[in-house]
């Protein structure tokens, strides 16, 4: 399949969002709102739930489902408050020794006056910095769009998985085409160049698992639940220092010539 067809699928209306994943994989989800600094950013959902019998922290970027919901969630583009809310929940997870599971689905962190004024770059930088040494297992799953730094803020993890028809990229194919060829209609070509599909990223060792979508959404939820249980049970037995060293080395290897 052409890369841009996958881009279209990853962005499609009606594609399952973080909310669906939370409802179908976990039980007793309790949402915890707010960053205790400025506001509650609806583009990020965070809270605690059971994965089978294990309490876990769940954080996800939420694009919204119907039009009204999408607007209230800013189409999944988080403000700095969203990242600060996420970071607060990550730190609580560490305190209570809960694994962290992140769902990524965003075209990118929001670009706006307020977002800049309140330190969008600083908020993302703080997530990367603290996730690197968060003393609990972290697993990140890209379910739709993984747009640049705004996605990476929730994807500094022990393992990063992708749904088969999701994408992960440093820049949108449209943005790339308009910089490269001054022509955003060449997005399909740019999408090929960027190697942003799960298949390409698996080949490049950027991600650890690709979750098949061939057997339908229900099967994807079940697969993810099973894989999460396996991975978390295994990583809960790893020594804290080993876990962090492994996470460091996971990213250290990229571009180590």
């Amino acid at each position, binding site marked *: 399949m052409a890369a841009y067809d996958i881009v279209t699928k990853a962005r499609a209306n009606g594609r399952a969002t973080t909310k669906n994943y939370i409802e179908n994989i976990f039980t007793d989800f309790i949402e915890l709102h707010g960053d205790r600094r400025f506001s509650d950013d609806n583009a990020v959902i965070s809270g605690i739930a059971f994965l089978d019998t294990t309490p876990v922290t769940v954080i996800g970027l939420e694009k919204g489902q119907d039009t009204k919901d999408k607007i209230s969630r800013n189409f999944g583009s988080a403000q700095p408050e969203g990242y600060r809310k996420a970071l607060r929940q990550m730190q609580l997870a560490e305190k209570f020794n809960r694994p962290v599971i992140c769902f990524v689905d965003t075209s990118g962190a929001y670009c706006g*006056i307020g977002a*800049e004024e*309140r330190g969008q770059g*600083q908020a993302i930088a703080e997530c990367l910095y603290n996730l690197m040494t968060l003393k609990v297992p972290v697993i990140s799953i890209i379910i739709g769009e993984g747009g640049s730094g705004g996605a990476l803020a929730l994807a500094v993890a022990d393992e990063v998985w992708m749904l088969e028809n999701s994408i992960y990229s440093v*820049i949108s194919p449209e943005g790339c085409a308009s910089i490269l060829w001054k022509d955003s209609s060449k997005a399909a070509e740019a999408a090929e160049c960027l190697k942003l599909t799960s298949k390409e*990223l698996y080949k490049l060792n950027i991600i650890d698992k690709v979750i098949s979508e061939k057997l339908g959404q229900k099967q994807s939820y079940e697969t993810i639940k099973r894989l999460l249980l396996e991975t978390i049970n295994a990583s809960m037995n790893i020594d804290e220092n080993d876990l962090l060293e492994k996470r460091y080395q996971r990213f250290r290897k*990229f*571009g180590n010539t």
Partner: protein
Amino acid sequence: MIRKGIFKKPKIALEGNIKQSKTPSANIPNEMCVCCPSCNKMLFNDELNENLVVCSYCNHHFRMNSRQRLNMIADEDSFIEHNTDLKSENILDFPNYDKKLKNSQLESSENEAVITGVCKINSINSAIFVMEPYFMMGSMGTVVGEKITRIFEFASENRLPVIGFCVSGGARMQEGILSLMQMAKVSGAVKKHSDNRLLYITVLTDPTMGGVTASFAMQGDIIIAEPNALVGFAGPRVIEQTIRQKLPDGFQKAEYLLKTGFINDIVERKKLKEYLTKLLQLHNYK
């Protein structure tokens, strides 16, 4: 993407053992003087360079290349450069990237968009990285990420502070996802250095944007900026296109970041070396 400065790499008297011979004459503008974009006065290149590339009339801070910055901060002959030979490769076979790299190497006389190493600052040992605006506008690819990561690892092992000069348009698109991964990789090395209770100072210069702002530029224990430097996550044009309105005056400028609380201070080039020396001394580095 950020537009380049009004003139190319200015000629400056290079001191010490620094790669003087590699500066190609093609980079030196033929004109003997430039017009200050801030006050419109004509400035002689020689005088400008003697004045740390700062306008003597209005204090406008011109863009400065990485070697000039090093000469300004490091004690004479004290800089020992690390990993000079690391060069980017076109890992993803991205169109025109090979050519772009070659041109950037010629334009900047550098192998990559950052130089790293150790130096003495008023006799105090420090690790240092200086990003290069004349190499693809300091964009961060795998080699930039690798060199900065290595200097943090070296500083952790040798218990050195790190001083980092940032200038960057952001992540390097031509290296795709691998450039995004550098944000995480460098952040890991910065965090380890910090957990060793070592000092990291970032100096933000014009412009510091995108993935660099969203990672190591904003992770300093102390963050300072040069006057009038543009610092932000999204570029001003992207924001204008998104919100379809004009941005307020001074938006994303250093003075604005000082007001909103994201940097600790603004320090003029002329005072920078003494300022950094005092900070190092206040953290018990000798």
